[in-house]
């Protein structure tokens, strides 16, 4: 979120910017909420098929990704704390780490999808269509939900790259850090969403 502009004297409303970000996050929660409704309804209808299908997901890769994302949330939180204290260098380093961790998450996810696709398990594939309906739904939801989550990770990485530029150009500094804070809020949202997706797809068996 940007600072308010286009007024006589420059108006800056940090609280307003934070408020706007929270409203945006609420809206994102309901976006994913629609998919969580679908997941619960279909799991309720097809308990066995969901159970069997989820056995096929790689818990180790999922756990690794969970760790990666949690760590990235930590690094961005410290990065924000650092810029508030004027530790510009530490903030930059930690932001770079966050971006790298985000990319690592996506690479991991790519591998995971790659293996599944190699086994012929992707929407509309003949292998998947030969399976029980519950499993078609499980994998359909798996691709849609982790895919849209992955898209959010990608957006987060892009946003952090822009923030990095802002820090380097001194547009974000000790006295002016709300954009970075808001980007951090968004990243925590992405993180929390994953903390629900991970058990729903990998752990409940």
């Amino acid at each position, binding site marked *: 979120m940007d600072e308010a502009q286009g007024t006589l004297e420059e108006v800056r409303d940090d609280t307003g910017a934070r408020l706007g970000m929270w409203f945006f996050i609420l809206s994102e929660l*309901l976006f994913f909420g629609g998919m969580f409704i679908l997941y619960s309804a279909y799991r309720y209808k097809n308990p066995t098929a969901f159970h069997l299908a989820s056995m096929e997901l790689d818990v180790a890769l999922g756990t690794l990704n969970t760790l990666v994302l949690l760590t990235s949330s930590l690094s961005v939180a410290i990065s924000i704390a650092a810029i508030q204290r004027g530790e510009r260098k530490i903030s930059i380093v930690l932001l770079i780490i966050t971006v790298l961790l985000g990319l690592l998450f996506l690479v991991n996810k790519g591998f995971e999808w790659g293996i599944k696709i190699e086994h012929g398990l992707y929407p509309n594939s003949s292998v998947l269509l030969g399976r029980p309906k519950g499993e*078609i739904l499980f994998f359909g939801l798996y*691709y*849609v939900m982790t895919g849209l989550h992955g898209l959010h990770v990608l957006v987060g990485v892009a946003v952090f790259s822009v923030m990095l530029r802002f820090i380097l150009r001194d547009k974000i500094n000790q006295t002016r850090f709300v954009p970075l804070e808001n980007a951090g809020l968004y990243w925590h949202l992405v993180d929390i969403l994953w903390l629900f997706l991970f058990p729903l797809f990998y752990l409940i068996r």
Partner: protein
Amino acid sequence: MTSTGVAEPISFYHDHGRYRGILSWVLSLDHKRIGLLYMIFVFGFFMIGVILGFFMRLEMIAPGGAIMGPQRYNSLFTLHGIIMIFLVVIPAIPTVFGNFFLPIQIGARDVAFPRINLLSWWLYISGATIVALAVFTGEGPPDTGWTFYAPYSLRTTVNVPLAVFGVFILGMSSILTGINFVTTTHRLRAPGMTWRRLPLFVWGIYSTSWVQILATPVIGITMVLIFLERYFGVGVFDPTRGGDPLLYQHLFWIYSHPATYIMILPAMGIVSDVIPVFARKRIFGYMAIAVSGMAIAAVGSLVWGHHMFVSGQSDFANMLFSLLTFLVAVPSAIKVFNWIATLHKGSLVLEPPLFFCLVFIFLFSIGGLTGLIQGALAPNMHLHDTYWIPAHFHYIIFGGMGFGLFAGLHYWFPKMFGRMYNRRMAMGALVVMFVGFNIFYFSMLLLGWEGMPRRYYDYLPQFRSLHLSATFGSWILIAGLILMFGNLFRALVKGEKAGDNPWDGATLEWQIASPPPTENFATIPVVKGGPHDFKEFESHG
């Protein structure tokens, strides 16, 4: 309220900012310019929607496919729905009048996020362009109805994916607008502008914006899923793959029912602000109106299942949704009673905006009461998917939201453009529209009662006379619309100067110049009274 009289401030029409020509509009961060940008397109799309509706009615003038076949008729009612719902009635009042007047009414210089405001407009235009592409490319325009019900929307060969993608983009625009207005209302109120002093239009936009933030993402994901379903065959709504089309209906109406409150709440806000000005009297039950708006937004978000009484949901769900539907009628009725109570013993000033409001109350009441009839379970079996439903809907949305929009247009026109329209002509146009409207839609109510199914291009001979009168009414209605817009357009070109406060309004927008200057206020005003303190005007009026 204080006046902010600095020697003749330059109006926002003449201050073009950083850019020149067309760029000074499409890249402007000024909320008033953005509001007018929306206005041009909203009314443009409204005309297209009306023309589509005209041809639908013309087709129904006689049985046996008077001027077109079934496929074309399907596309026609689909496009009429998509354009009217997503491009006109959902955005209309918040984006046009909300943008133009919400900041002024709370004593602010602009919205909280002017750049995001401009982004919203660009998303709106992009979404509209994508919908237009869906009409002219691929295997033809969508024919699913504006509801895109699965599984038909997954099967039909016509251009559904592009259309739902367009709706998704329009949803993003709507969410950003909502976020902007809620933040603006919370953060940018002038000193002294307490929540109890907010003009009721602001309350209307505020409650609407909450629905926009919380409900629109649900249609966002629904449209994304239709899109993914079409291209990747995921199967979540496809019964052959285990998906449940009923869940599609749930997700769709979780947004689209609250969306009808996105449409009507701002109109109620306009009416609540206009009536006191022309009754020269404080609104009856200010807090009741403000809070009932929020209550409609909250309870209205929980009634979506009443669209699905015959879709096969459980009896228990049916009863629950029917009960909630009856509950949501209570705050709506509170508003109607309060408006009437405000008129009672007021010193009525008989000007066009007031008459538009009276027509609003009349038509909205018919819409609301017919809504209760179809919200009860037993009559719903009979009325479901008949002409009764679109007739009720048009009484609420066209009769309510549409005439609320026109009331706002006639109320604020002198402020927005600095010129006054011909008031007698405005009254005349209103009478013509009122007559045409009722001949048109009351015939449709009767048709539905007698069992005429909606969305059919043909009908049995027994429905002939009512269809004929509905088509006849549609012509009168369109004639009235032409008169009204013609009158306003004429005023735009050669109307007489309106003055700063032609209606003696007490809200802040009437205390500044017409048209308002850039930044609205030279110094941010200090608010000392409510929105309906007319005493000042009585002493020297």
